[in-house]
């Protein structure tokens, strides 16, 4: 029961929180550009509209694949907040991302293909950082369970600053923020227009948007974990992290995939890997 409640709460409330976060994101972005920006509920209007557009799939695979994308992402988050093994969460999270890639590959559009390939590169770039983060969390707190890590009171951020910085870098990719929004951007500056969602419209796109809300809340949950020894501090850290991501989004142009991949792996190796090695070398626990 203790496990079920947070998992259920995530499944029901994450889309709400994620949608509001997306709305706040757009307003803050607009203010950074000296604009007024859309209403806070704009993401919900958008998704409602997309559902009302009905089925515009180019083949019969897209919608079920997008549905799996959503279900696996919700499952990953429910596992995470329900106290499942974080390693398992990372695997389910990756599977969810792969369903979106499959949906994009199922169409014949070359733009959709390029978007899908870039999404694969992003998954490839982010994966090592996530796995090292899981290993490091286990090393410090002795657990891979959200609630146990939080209850252990281990100040993860003090022992894992390198891992956290690396995670911050990877978060930019996963939140689809510039300069790493190469596969699908919410903004107008993309080179391949809508990339991975080129051929995904209507209700399929609505599902993808909702999945992205689930994803964002899950990722911010991971940020929370690093500061979990003090809840108010953790919430402030989550808010600040997201704000910095929005700032990065508004102040960076896009990088090429080669740089995205190599820089992420270098940072993962140096910051996260170095952090982990130092932990072992110093033998601290």
């Amino acid at each position, binding site marked *: 029961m203790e496990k079920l409640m947070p998992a259920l709460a995530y499944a029901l409330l994450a889309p709400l929180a994620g949608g509001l976060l997306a709305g706040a994101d*757009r307003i803050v972005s*607009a203010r950074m*550009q*000296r*604009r*007024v*920006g*859309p*209403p806070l509920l*704009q993401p919900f*209007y*958008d998704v*409602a*509209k997309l559902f*009302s*557009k*009905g089925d*515009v799939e180019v083949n019969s695979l897209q919608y079920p694949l997008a549905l799996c994308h959503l279900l696996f992402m919700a499952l990953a988050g429910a596992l995470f907040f329900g106290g499942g093994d974080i390693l398992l969460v990372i695997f389910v999270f990756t599977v969810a991302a792969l369903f979106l890639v499959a949906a994009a590959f199922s169409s014949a559009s070359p733009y959709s293909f390029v978007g899908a390939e870039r999404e694969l590169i992003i998954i490839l770039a982010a994966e090592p950082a996530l796995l090292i983060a899981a290993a490091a969390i286990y090393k410090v707190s002795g657990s891979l369970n959200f609630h146990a890590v939080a209850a252990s009171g281990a100040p993860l951020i003090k022992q894992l600053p390198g891992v956290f910085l690396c995670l911050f870098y990877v978060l930019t990719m996963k939140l689809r923020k510039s300069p790493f929004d190469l596969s699908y951007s919410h903004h*107008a500056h*993309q080179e391949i*227009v*809508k990339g991975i*969602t*080129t*051929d*995904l*419209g*209507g209700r399929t*796109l609505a599902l993808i948007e909702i999945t992205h809300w689930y994803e964002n809340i899950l990722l911010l949950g991971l940020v929370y974990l690093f500061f979990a020894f003090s809840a108010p501090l953790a919430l402030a850290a989550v808010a600040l992290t997201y704000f910095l991501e929005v700032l990065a989004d508004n102040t960076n142009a896009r990088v090429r995939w080669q740089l995205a991949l190599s820089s992420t792996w270098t940072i993962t190796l140096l910051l996260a890997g170095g952090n982990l090695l130092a932990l072992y070398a110093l033998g601290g626990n």
Partner: protein
Amino acid sequence: MSLKKSPWLLHYDGSSCNGCDIEVLACLTPLYDAERFGVINTGNPRHADLLLLTGSINHQNEEVVRNLYAQMPEPKVVLAVGICATSGGVFADCYNVKGGADKVLPVDVYVPGCAARPEAIIDGIVRALGVLEQKRAAAEAKK
């Protein structure tokens, strides 16, 4: 109601002199900030509700315009922005120009001007949203 609050538009430059296109982009700048009304310039026909055309139709872009329109999901509206897109304007008599956007597509809203001013374009978009609602109501009544 939701349709009206989230107009995503696709902007296609037929054979415009770029004057109207600059004004279309001006609508998104801080001074006019069309995103206040939820407007997004998507660049992808499958995501678009509004097709915004600038410049006249010629023999080369005719097929492109038809193709873009065909890819947009229903309900959809077409906006002809600038006098070139409305009627061909001063280029109407050119050997290569067929005329305004309504030579190939059912245009719902005409925004005249050379170049069309951002205020007029935003006004046109707001009117187009009214048409969009009507179209959706008509489609639902048919069902």
